[in-house]
């Protein structure tokens, strides 16, 4: 590690990040900080660059300009070991992306065994614990195709947690779910937040953002329009764009 990072500094520090896909600039100078144990929710209309921002944090997407630091380490340093970074940053996707040829338990166990090279027995005990934690006991041997959307998403969360990450990124994880199953996934995330996991959520669930979020960011057309703690953000939004968006959603 090049810079000594201490937990009182931001665990994720984003400064003036620009990102273009071809001629389209999706991030036009985004800055935000996340402290350890904080739950940050990013809201905003579709296409405002929320998901891209999350993908930049674990280097799935390269940035054009600016700086992203995770635990003091520059993410877009070409010399950075991306695999080391991704061991610290877990990510859960809208489309679950479970490995369909593996059972729920195997999905959770794969990365710790093959990436972290941890002993199988120890990983299996942890994986069974995680499946229990996301309330899927008895589904260990089910294949993803045999599980509902909400169940698959909870396996995906367990799969990320098995890497013992320091930060969890949630990219619209409930957007593809039936209304009835949204709740079971949100309950899992809320528990994580309560345990002190640092979480960054891109979400359309305003009620949930208000309830679990420590800080809300509103993005529109590639910039952060407004941010603040939920209590003031949802009641006293000052920017007209934020107010227009909230009035449509709430």
């Amino acid at each position, binding site marked *: 590690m090049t810079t000594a990072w201490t937990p009182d500094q931001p665990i994720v520090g984003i400064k003036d990040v620009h990102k273009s896909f071809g001629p389209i600039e999706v991030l036009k100078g985004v800055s935000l900080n996340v402290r350890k144990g904080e739950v940050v929710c990013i809201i905003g209309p579709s296409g405002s660059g929320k998901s891209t921002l999350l993908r930049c944090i674990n280097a799935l997407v390269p940035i054009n300009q600016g700086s992203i630091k995770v635990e003091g380490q520059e993410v877009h340093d070409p010399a950075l070991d991306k695999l080391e970074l991704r061991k610290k940053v877990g*990510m859960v996707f809208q*489309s679950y*992306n479970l490995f369909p*040829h593996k059972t729920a338990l195997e999905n959770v166990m*794969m990365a710790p065994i*093959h*990436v972290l090279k941890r002993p199988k027995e120890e990983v299996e005990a942890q994986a069974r614990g995680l499946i229990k934690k996301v309330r899927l006991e008895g589904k260990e041997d089910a294949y993803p195709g045999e599980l509902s959307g909400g169940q698959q998403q909870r396996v*995906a969360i367990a799969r990320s947690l098995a890497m013992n990450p320091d930060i969890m990124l949630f990219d619209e994880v409930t957007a593809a779910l039936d209304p009835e199953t949204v709740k079971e996934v949100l309950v899992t995330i809320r528990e994580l937040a309560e345990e002190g996991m640092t979480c960054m959520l891109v979400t359309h669930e305003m009620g949930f953002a208000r309830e679990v979020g420590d800080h809300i960011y509103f993005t529109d057309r590639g910039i952060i329009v407004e941010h603040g703690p939920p209590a003031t953000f949802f009641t006293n939004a000052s920017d007209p764009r934020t107010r227009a968006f909230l009035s449509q959603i709430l």
Partner: protein
Amino acid sequence: MSAGGNSNLILAPVAPPSSQGETGFLASAFTPRALGIALGLFASVALVSEAWAQLVAGGERLGILATLWKWAPLVLIGPPREFGGFALNILVSFLAMAIGTVSGLVLGLGLISKFAPVRSVSWAITQFFRNSPWLVLLFFVMLLTPFQFRIGGLTIPFPAWFKATVGLALPVMANVAEIVRGAVNSIPTGQWESAESLAFSRLQTLWRIILPQCVKRMIPPWMNWYAILTMSTPLISIVGVNDAMTLTQDALASEQRTDLLMPMYGMLLLFFFVYCYPIARWTIRLERKFAVRI
């Protein structure tokens, strides 16, 4: 066809269109009815020739079926104490498929390499061997490779039949490479993304996550290429190998009877049909099975 037959045809449920066009097309040509027609045609040619031969020649010469029976062992397994005939065709098909599959897998991974030079070279090799006539490739391999290799004091023979096998393996390699590339590209990008975010390396992602999901998709087109390869093995007779085709021609030469031409080649066709038809049927079954699961 009778009116009843026609109405049956209309009322019968339409088979779902096959997702893999090429395989589906080949497979649909082999219905149980086709099997019946092939066997029936062969039997009638044999019987008519038999009757005709008896009429013309009287008792002097062997009948057609008896002659076929006499030559069948040679065409099937080659001359005594020598390996050849249809068995050699099958051996060549196995070996060429094995060589073509392993090298095709490597070439296919080259096609999806992140390293541009590897990708370009793989692309060129694939296109070259996919678009060359198999017979010309065979001649090239026959003429370009020596009949033996010397490594130090050791002499490794490189017999004609093995050269021919390599010659057939080359187009198989190129087509297997295309199957691999197509299957890998058909896996949703989300699988790559989630593997990446779990810190899997690219090689680990391919080996543990992407390729295992590709196997099911690759098996039907792969089997289709095996059937095509097997049906192409008589090409090796051109380069002087004792395969079923060569031996059929030898048998005809020693008999000197024009009435045997159709039955002898018919018998050879029948051997290939009996071997390849079940593979085609099995391919369709697997295609349907996997189409539902994926």
